[in-house]
């Protein structure tokens, strides 16, 4: 990767975009299989990194396509965010001294389960539709 910095900006942006999309594709599949707290966290990070790349290097990606993809990313981020919020709340609730029998933790556990189901559904659909390959082609990114 060190040699990448001597590339001109359009090529550099495409390389960075491809790297982040690769990572996102991996996290979509991983979290679609098991939405553990760590997997959901990593998915959110991968989405944000890819989104940042699209935003910072927007001059080098097709505008309309990038906009549509960012909208789709935000939707996935929202779904993942609902799960993540519950994970955090459960963690803080335990730190606050709540036991497993507490109404609060049981409520959040139930909410988490529901949010995770919705997220899993969306991710499996994304994987089935081969979203990352489509995005790669729309953004004119080369396979690394």
């Amino acid at each position: 990767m060190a040699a990448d910095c001597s590339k001109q900006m359009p090529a550099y942006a495409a390389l960075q975009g491809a790297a982040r999309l690769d990572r996102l594709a991996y996290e979509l599949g991983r979290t679609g299989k098991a939405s553990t707290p760590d997997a959901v966290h990593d998915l959110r990070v991968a989405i944000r990194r890819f989104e940042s790349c699209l935003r910072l290097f927007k001059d080098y990606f097709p505008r309309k396509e990038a906009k549509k993809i960012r909208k789709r990313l935000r939707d996935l981020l929202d779904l993942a965010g609902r799960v993540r919020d519950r994970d955090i709340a459960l963690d803080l609730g335990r730190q606050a001294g709540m036991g497993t029998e507490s109404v609060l933790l049981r409520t959040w556990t139930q909410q988490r389960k529901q949010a995770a189901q919705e997220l899993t559904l969306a991710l499996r659909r994304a994987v089935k539709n081969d979203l990352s390959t489509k995005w790669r082609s729309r953004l004119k990114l080369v396979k690394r």
Partner: protein
Amino acid sequence: MKKQKHPWASSKTAAENAQRVLPGLAESFFQAGRKAAGEEQSPKALHRFRLEVKRFRYYLELFTPCYGPGLKERLNVLRRVQDYLGFLSDCAATQRMLEGLATLPAREGKQCSAFLSKQSVEKRAAFVIYWRETCDAPGKVEWWVNYLEHFAGQRRATQRKPARRPAKARRKASGKAPVAAPPPAPPASTEP
């Protein structure tokens, strides 16, 4: 940190662009941080700064290939700031979720709420101390700006090993039998 346009020079290399654009982002980061850790310290200001730190970090990470280990050191500072601010945001989000629950034993609600408030106060104080004494200590702005301005594109130069002839050719020239290769020397680095 205001939303900035990044006028990339397409004909220039990534390293040259990094040198040109990133120091300005670092300066904006300090301005926003001083505002957030200053007198105001309102949840809204801290939240805004958290988002800005996150954005700044992701932007820097996009230029990781252009810099050496010094960038990692700086990214660790941002990560630490994010940890403080992230925890504050987690407490606020959990508090909102708590308030959104219609039925909840009063004792549990109070216990959790009190914990969140206490943690928030402590973390906010810890953030302000970290910001003033470490992150924004005297000379830190220059530490960032000078690095981002002068060390882009040097990673390759500092880590490249001198070209060597193939082992077979070297043996032939010296007339020696093959020997085990010595351990590679650590890469020289002049980064601050």
